[in-house]
């Protein structure tokens, strides 16, 4: 027998003006199962709450209905009050007679009758509420950070400094990411390597950070607090424990003409290599695609044709027969920081992108992208910092910088702004002018977007102090004409066509998410937007969380980001992870679905519709222990309580606690007062 207390709030005059609150209490007093019904001026006030608590104790109530404002406003308040009075908080519900009644109606009679209906409905629901206890989930206090760029390094350091172990994985041979390729950084023009390298070393040497380079995520199982991640350590051919980074193997390698990824193709490397001198760890990898020995093996030669690196290695660290290995790491939280790649406009375009064949990238050697310019400008780059054009090594006297190549061009497939290009173009123009005093730097731009601390001042400086010439307009065609690179453009301010005989052209190509991001997102059960950037849980209020609890996102894999933003996001994920790790158990509301194993037939329709991958097939056994079938199982740690599984279940064998069929049935029954 239910003993329900109904408490009707006047909300000052907000409800009482149109709803006769006394009449509502009066009507509910007569309702079956209602033990006490009272009205009060402000139910959410301390005396109001005290009234509820006293009524619970005096009448030994089994349920409470507060007829007042929206549950979004005060459900927590009243549930807490019930809890304090010894009534399970999930036995308390709110009847919304303010937002859904008194505020939207004039007629006092109609509003009062509707308020009575609403309250009765909730009383009928509460009769079927069950006391529920919060769900406690153990938390493994270790984090996985995917991606060893500046965002990943920062996130790893913050979590490690907070006292928890971090597994940092990087698909390349070294951590450092794109930041390690940059010459100077805007808006301060400080040397990128100089500020990054200490961070890389710190991450490598940190006692709480376990680093896997040349590694990728193979599989992710589990859920918040309890992930199990399988990492593929790609065959390196070099024993990381034995190698001392002496470099003898690189010197011995005969394949020396391989375009260096780190130098953006402007420099060469050997087949066994460390990507750059400051690499962390300073342990080479063997590029089996380009290695003479492996080329021979692929041809099926009986005998290995090379092996010079192995001969040169005094530590005997080189082994040509290693294979990919797998390690499994148990972690409680995952930070995705896989960064970006540049829109590779010279190559085959992925679906939906049209490319920029008219800009001659990939055909005209002196048309380069922003990262290539960074390498030209870098003191550690292929030209040791001298600006020399790739085709003939001459110093270019006229350099054209083209903004928005790919970005903000829905026609070509990318609608978004890549955000950093305005700034790095200004930086490039500046660096060029600092090195080639008599040169001309001409930039074609659409708009200059320089929002950020010191950013606008910086881009103005490029124009006003360093004399970069900015032309507002687009470039229609770039092609080689003898010794020069012809640039056809249009100056929208003067309304004239512009033709420039340039010596070199730098294209500010769009930022795109890294290759493989969609596959990774799928493994992590997080969603991506139409471009492949990882979706945050809320664009304003939960910018570093994803829809999968326990998976966070930092840096340019979420959207184009510059360094300070990527670092800020990384530290934000650090705070989120440390918050998660601050308790031994995670407490969650029990609004989760539960399967009735007696009637479930394991058709797994529920699994198909679960947005969180919370449902899995589970074997059931007879009493004597042999498997006799399977049923669906909802992992309460992952379930977010949407109830979609219940709606598609044909036999109604899964039930969302807090919104059970019985509760809803009772509400419908109470609402349609007929029969």
């Amino acid at each position, binding site marked *: 027998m239910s003993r329900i207390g109904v408490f009707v709030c006047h909300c000052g005059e907000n409800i009482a003006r149109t709803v006769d609150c006394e009449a509502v209490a009066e009507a509910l007093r007569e309702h079956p199962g209602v033990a006490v019904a009272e009205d009060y001026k402000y139910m959410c006030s301390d005396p109001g709450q005290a009234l509820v608590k006293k009524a619970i104790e005096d009448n030994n109530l089994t349920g409470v209905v507060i007829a007042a404002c929206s549950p979004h406003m005060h459900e927590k308040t009243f549930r807490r009050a019930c809890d304090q009075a010894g009534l399970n908080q999930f036995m308390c519900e709110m009847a919304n007679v303010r937002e*859904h009644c008194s505020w939207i109606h004039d007629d006092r*009679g109609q509003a009062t009758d509707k308020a009575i209906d609403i309250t009765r409905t909730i009383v009928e629901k509460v009769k079927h509420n069950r006391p529920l206890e919060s769900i406690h989930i153990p938390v493994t206090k270790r984090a996985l950070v995917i991606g060893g760029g500046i965002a990943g390094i920062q996130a790893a350091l913050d979590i490690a400094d907070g006292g928890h172990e971090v597994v940092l994985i990087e698909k390349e041979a070294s951590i450092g990411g794109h930041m390690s390729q940059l010459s100077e950084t805007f808006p301060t023009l400080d040397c990128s390597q100089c500020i990054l390298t200490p961070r890389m070393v710190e991450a490598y040497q940190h006692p709480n950070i376990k680093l896997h380079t040349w590694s990728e995520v193979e599989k992710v199982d589990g859920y918040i607090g309890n992930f199990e991640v399988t990492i593929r350590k790609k065959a390196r051919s070099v024993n990381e424990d034995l190698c001392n980074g002496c470099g003898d193997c690189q010197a011995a390698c005969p394949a020396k003409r391989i375009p260096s990824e780190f130098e953006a193709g402007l420099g060469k490397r050997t087949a066994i290599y460390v990507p750059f001198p400051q690499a962390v760890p300073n342990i080479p990898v063997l590029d089996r695609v380009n290695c003479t020995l492996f080329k021979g093996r692929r041809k099926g030669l009986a005998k290995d044709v090379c092996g010079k690196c192995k001969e040169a290695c005094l530590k005997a660290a080189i082994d040509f027969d290693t294979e990919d290995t797998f390690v499994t790491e148990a972690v409680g939280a995952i930070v995705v920081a896989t960064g970006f790649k540049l829109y590779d406009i010279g190559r085959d375009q992925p679906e939906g992108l049209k490319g920029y064949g008219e800009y001659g990238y990939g055909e005209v050697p002196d048309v380069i992208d922003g990262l290539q310019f960074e390498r030209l400008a870098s003191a550690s780059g292929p030209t040791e910092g001298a600006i020399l054009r790739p085709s003939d090594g001459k110093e270019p006297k006229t350099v054209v910088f083209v903004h928005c190549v790919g970005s903000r061009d829905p026609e070509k497939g990318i609608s978004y702004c890549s955000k950093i290009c305005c700034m790095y173009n200004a930086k490039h123009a500046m660096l060029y002018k600092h090195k080639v005093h008599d040169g001309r730097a001409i930039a074609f731009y659409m708009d200059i977007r320089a929002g950020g601390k010191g950013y606008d001042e910086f881009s103005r400086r490029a124009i006003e102090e360093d004399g970069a010439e900015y032309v507002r307009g687009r470039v229609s065609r770039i092609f080689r004409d003898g010794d020069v690179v012809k640039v056809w453009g249009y100056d929208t301010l003067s309304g004239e066509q512009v033709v420039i005989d340039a010596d070199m052209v730098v294209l500010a190509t769009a930022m795109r998410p890294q290759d493989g991001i969609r596959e990774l997102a799928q493994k992590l059960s997080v969603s991506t937007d139409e471009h492949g950037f990882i979706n945050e849980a809320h664009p304003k209020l939960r910018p570093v969380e994803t829809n999968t609890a326990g998976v966070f996102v930092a840096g340019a894999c979420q959207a184009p980001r510059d360094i300070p933003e990527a670092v800020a996001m990384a530290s934000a994920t650090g705070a989120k992870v440390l918050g998660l790790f601050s308790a031994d158990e995670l407490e969650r509301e029990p609004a989760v679905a539960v399967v009735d194993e007696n009637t479930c037939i394991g058709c797994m329709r529920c699994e198909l519709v679960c947005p969180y991958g919370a449902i899995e097939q589970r074997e059931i056994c007879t009493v004597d222990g042999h498997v006799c079938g399977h049923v669906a199982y909802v992992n309460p740690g992952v379930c977010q309580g949407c109830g979609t599984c219940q*709606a598609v279940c044909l036999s109604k064998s899964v039930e969302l606690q807090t919104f059970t069929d019985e509760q809803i049935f009772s509400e419908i029954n109470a*609402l*349609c007062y007929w*029969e």
Partner: protein
Amino acid sequence: MSDAIDTSGAAADGFEPRITAFVCNWCTYTGADLAGTSRLHMASNVRIIRLPCTGRIDPLFIIKAFERGADGVIVSGCHPADCHYTSGNYHARRRFAVFHDIMEFIGVDPRRMTFSWVSASEGSKWRDVVNEAVTNVRALGPFEAYRALAPKDVGVAAPAGPGAVAAPASAGIKAEAS
């Protein structure tokens, strides 16, 4: 649509429809809250049942509402791409589509079933959805056809007269005194 409720369209017998609304907690319920906070006045014939997501809404709920004497139903949730649970509304949309089409095939006037997407910021859209549903169902009259299916031994206390909507629930509720 004006704030004033036009009751002049009421049928001669003063019929006022009873409409049950199944709405998701995150968008439409919050949108209806916003309508309240914005004091957007609307017809008082609609009673809301809150659910976490449109994905939770089983077509049986709608059948049950008709069985229990609802003259119309509203089903409303987050717009596509806005679902709090990412994809609950997409799954719901398919089920509702099949339900809508099959009910129409069986001979239920689709105007008795309003499906809508109302976001948390669309208080005025919610008002319009409510008023339009009420106007439509009022014009269609009571859903006697469905009520006539009831076993004959059950009381057929069809509400009558003005303010039927507001008739105290005690007029018919057989509350379970559990």
